[in-house]
């Protein structure tokens, strides 16, 4: 069994200023962590390896040299091999360029040792687009299952798997052929406390570093800023919406409720047409 897990190092934006446990500072110069969903993806891969009785878990990331720390944490969690795809030329990548690089890297890894399953986090807590996993699946032309919460069956001989995914209405159970790409929710596997000997081994582990030209020659037109057509106009946190008005039929009667609702809609509509008046709160 060969699993590849794509992980991203992200700033710890949990935005708590006080460590709930110790009451001490959460640092300025916010510390970097492994994207939380990605750690669960690593754990799922390691558990799958244990379940089928062996294999290899390869973790990859595209990021600055500092991202090696994140890979080492994955080695602690049980991954066997870690690759850091790092080059100034990758800088400024959007989801399109990121997907291109990761897809090409996975193809190369697959040529060395065929890959049965690829795991991504459901989304990165900084970028939050949830596009990179699907982008990679599309480029590799393999089945994609997003928001996976469990791998019920994993049959390397029949080359099929049964996966549960979370949807708004409930849970979907899907059968897929292998290789498959999953983007995972945290439920996929609880992250275990890594044993001390693994921490010690990982502390001495050095991830492989791939540049833009070796061992894979990436198309310079498709990486970094050049390969990134996305233009971010503005980044902002949407204003928190208040709870809204509850109009009860029991209290007012149907007609009054409809009238009230219409009035509210009209008011909102007027505001949309004339945003500068800003009278509606």
């Amino acid at each position, binding site marked *: 069994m060969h699993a590849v897990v794509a992980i991203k190092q992200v700033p710890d934006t949990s935005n708590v*200023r*006080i*460590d709930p446990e*110790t*009451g*001490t*500072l*959460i*640092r*300025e*110069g916010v*510390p970097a*962590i492994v994207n939380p969903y990605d750690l669960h993806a690593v754990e799922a891969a390691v558990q799958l390896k244990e379940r089928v009785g062996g294999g290899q878990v390869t973790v990859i990331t595209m990021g600055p040299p500092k991202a090696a720390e994140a890979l080492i944490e994955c080695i602690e969690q049980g991954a066997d091999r870690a690759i850091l795809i790092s080059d100034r030329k990758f800088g400024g990548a959007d989801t399109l360029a990121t997907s291109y690089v990761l897809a090409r890297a996975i193809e190369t890894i697959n040529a060395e040792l065929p890959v049965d399953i690829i795991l991504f986090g459901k989304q990165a807590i900084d970028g939050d687009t949830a596009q990179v996993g699907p982008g990679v699946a599309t480029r590799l032309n393999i089945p994609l299952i997003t928001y996976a919460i469990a791998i019920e069956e994993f049959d390397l001989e029949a080359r099929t798997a049964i996966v549960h995914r979370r949807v708004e209405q409930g849970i979907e159970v899907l059968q897929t052929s292998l290789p498959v790409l999953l983007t995972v929710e945290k439920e996929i596997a609880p992250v275990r*406390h*890594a*044993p*001390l*000997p693994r*921490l*010690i081994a990982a*502390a*001495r582990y050095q991830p492989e570093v791939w540049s833009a030209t070796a061992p894979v020659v990436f198309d310079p037109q498709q990486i970094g800023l050049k390969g990134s057509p996305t233009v971010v106009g503005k980044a902002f946190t949407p204003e928190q919406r208040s709870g809204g008005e509850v109009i009860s039929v029991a209290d007012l009667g149907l007609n009054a409720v409809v009238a009230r609702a219409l009035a509210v809609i009209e008011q909102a509509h007027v505001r949309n047409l004339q945003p500068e008046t800003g009278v509606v709160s």
Partner: protein
Amino acid sequence: MGMLTFDAIVVGAGPAGVAAALTMARGGLKVIIIERGRFAGAKNLFGGVFYTHALADVLPDYWERKPPFERPVTEQGYWMLSPDSVIRVMHKSERYRKEPADAYTVLRARFDPWFAEQAVEAGALLITRTTVTRLLKDERGRVIGVDTDRPEGSVYAPVVIIAEGVNNLLTRQAGLIASDLPPTHVALAVKEYVNLPAKELQARFGLSGPREGVAIDVFGDVTLGLPGTGFIYTNQSGISIGVGMLLSEFITHRLRPYEVLERFKNHPVVRPYLEGGEVREYGAHLIPETGYDRMPKLAGDGVMVAGDAAGMVDALHREGTNLAITAGKAAGETALAAHQQGDFSAAFLSRYRRTLEDSFVLKDMKQYRRMTDFLESSPHFMGTYVNLLNEAALRYFTAHGIPKREMEHDIIKMVRERRSFTGVAWDMLKLMRAMRG
């Protein structure tokens, strides 16, 4: 997996632990440092003045290794606050300007990782996110290793150096100290980091550039006149501001630490310095006020303790990191000698304490041994005198058309009203005794 065995285990990657690990790694020992934080410094906080002399002792070429200092301290002194006034006693000297300077402001989140990195470069193994839960002892009670909160988490070594900071659980488990520190022997400090652009900060504090900085310790109204101090230190582009008092004072007077700090920040003299600054972080930390006479035993069979865990703090001069580093180094050197002799007994390791007795660490601790007791027994000291001084200054500096002789009498009368002559004499005597040791 076989047993995890090292030549030495260090618990805690604060200044004491790192200095010990660095010393031992350079001496050729196989060393593991176990730190519970995400990284060294992740859980650490201090006021902010770091003295370089101890660092130079463990790492003579530290300056070339580009330590993440904020600003050299080129001006320092005291503010004595009354509710609406201040008397400032500041010392500024051209002699503070030579670099490397004696003292720098520092942020531990930056400094500790850098310092730990020096130990790692020297060959020590740093394991983070791992808490040591207990000491492992053999049937004769000798320490032979530690257990951690990790699966398969036991590590063995003939010598363990405890540098766990003020929460001295392991020190207690080692039997080196009988009980936890009572609230009268531990101070609680709260601190904020307030962001300010460097230019603005320099203008407000009268600094001519990034190579100048101020360290101010504040007494009086900052702690509502209770024993304790406040501080204001300048970083590269931000202010460290905080206040600390004995835990017992917070309890007795039902004060909330953050309210005390908020009050300090809103003092009319202080507020203009912070205007427009953004609070980037805040936190709280304990400071041991153990005092020389209540310090733990510093060594047992297979174990030594250094830094805050051993109560090595000189609160009067707000020194702690330098005592911790010097002690860590001494413990490390003792461990090296123990390995050479193959003797890890308490008797052999007791030379660690002797080294410290000969250094400033225990000499200063001994000199100020009565300080905590003094403050405890004279809680009015700060408030009364600081307010008095401010009143006196006000009368002295204002012209009321009163003859100067009368004004002097007025001032003396005011002092007498607030505290009897014998009271003043007694306070001074006690203070002198506390200072002389």
